[in-house]
């Protein structure tokens, strides 16, 4: 267990020294995952809302499919994206393999189903809660969706967090499509895998600690935005 305490020491000395390599790796991790979260929100929120509110044939099938895609192993997504972006694959001419862009694409595929499934659930619940209200004011569908998205923003923030958490913590997909290339596609998780295979378990663990601190900071930021449970309830009661 003494490795863990020395890992903490290494982690804090790396952070304290603002180690250039570390900053580069952390920066790329955050940028790739945030970009992927942004893209998957653009796709997933409208799709989730459509499935939540709409009544169309195939809706049930879409729900089941998006729910099961949440369990897709990152390494399979990585493989699919690799085959697509490989030079002999259908998108090979773009030359995107082993670039951060390829990593964003893989992570977007990975978390879009999560965003769709969770957003659908959040919006569906709100929609039935507000059903009478919407009926009473005969609101148009567009405003209805916008109202639901706005009212459900705290729930949807959890959706973002779930997506971001999944993206920044996965290693299987980015390892295959990024290649873990130093100063180009190396992120926190692939660096941890590399240091582990070098047998430098303490440095690997230190990087893991830094990754966890990062997650803590992101969650803290969002927790500050989100009103407390009692505040939220009072709010709702006062308005309706």
């Amino acid at each position, binding site marked *: 267990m003494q490795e863990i305490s020395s890992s903490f020491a290494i982690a804090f000395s790396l952070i304290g020294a603002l180690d250039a390599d570390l900053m580069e790796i952390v920066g790329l991790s*955050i*940028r*790739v995952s*945030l*970009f992927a979260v*942004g893209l998957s929100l653009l796709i997933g929120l409208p799709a989730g809302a459509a499935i939540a509110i709409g009544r169309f044939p195939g809706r049930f099938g879409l729900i089941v499919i998006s729910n099961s895609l949440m369990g897709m192993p990152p390494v399979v997504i990585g493989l699919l994206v690799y085959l697509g972006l*490989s*030079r*002999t*694959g259908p998108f*090979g001419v773009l*030359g*995107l*393999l*082993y*670039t*951060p*862009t390829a990593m*964003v694409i893989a992570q977007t595929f990975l978390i879009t189903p999560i965003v769709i499934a969770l957003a659908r659930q959040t919006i569906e619940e709100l929609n039935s809660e507000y059903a009478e209200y919407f009926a009473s*004011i005969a*609101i148009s569908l567009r*405003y209805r969706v*916008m*109202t639901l998205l*706005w*009212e459900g923003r705290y729930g949807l923030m959890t959706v973002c967090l779930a997506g971001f958490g999944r993206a920044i913590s996965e290693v299987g997909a980015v390892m295959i499509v990024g*290649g*873990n*290339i*130093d100063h*180009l596609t190396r992120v926190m998780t692939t660096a941890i895998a*590399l240091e*582990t*295979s*070098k*047998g*430098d*378990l303490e440095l690997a663990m230190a990087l893991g600690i830094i990754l966890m601190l990062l997650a803590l900071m992101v969650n803290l*930021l*969002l927790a*500050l*935005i989100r*009103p407390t449970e009692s505040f939220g309830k009072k*709010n709702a009661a006062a*308005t309706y």
Partner: protein
Amino acid sequence: MYQRILQVKLYRNKRNSLLYGVLLAAVLLSCIPLGVNAGGDALVVQSTTSTANSGFYDHILPLFEKAHGIKVNVVAVGTGQAIRNAIRGDGDVLLVHAESDEKQFVQAGWGLKRFDLMFNDFLLVGPAADPAALSEAQSVSDALTRISGDEVLFASRGDDSGTHKKELALWSAAGIDPSGASGGWYRETGSGMGATLNIAVGMNAYCLTDRATWISFANKRGLTVLYEDDPPLFNQYGIILVNPKKHSHVNAQAGQTFIDWMIGEAGQNAIASFRRAGQQLFFPNASP
């Protein structure tokens, strides 16, 4: 109506606008150039975990980049996967260690010409208590016969890498087929060299490793070298340019520059000067 609701909500959460601002800024910042140094003229080298895990490229690449100003991106996978990636066109240069597969790669037209680059050797490592008495073995075949005879745990790469191919060749030369014991005393990890050594450490198993990874491996614990210095354990690395006639996008000029440098005086000296724990890990042997 909707706008009224919006206003009310916004007003109530005004104090949060600063935090929203911070979040928005973070998201926008993240969208700034991701693909700036993507690809371009950089060279992609498909290589092995044994070279990458030992820190070889951290020593070599800065020297080459300084001399020629060409950025080199190394993808470290097993030799088998590296060759398959190169066949798919996902690399410009192949630097691996499985001579017969490399020759086949060139013969099939995927590569231009194979050059010997450098060598080191393989070792059999295992628990210091040495239950199969490998330290008394007379030959590699004898050592492997002791392992299979006593059915002591052996961690195999099992990943079609150069080291795995070598291991299978050694078993075959000893007249032993360990595949029947897979999951029993013969454990195929399907992982890279370092990862397999970590597993061997955890299981107190015997393992075949290349010397470079072993010397730079930081988690040896109870594992120690038990059999070494035998001609069959020779480990030759080769370097090949992927055939630009097969894949027109191959960065042939930069690739050839890299190969010429590696097999030339500067590269060979750079290889010889790479040391870990005071020991030389790779021995240059390109023919002039």
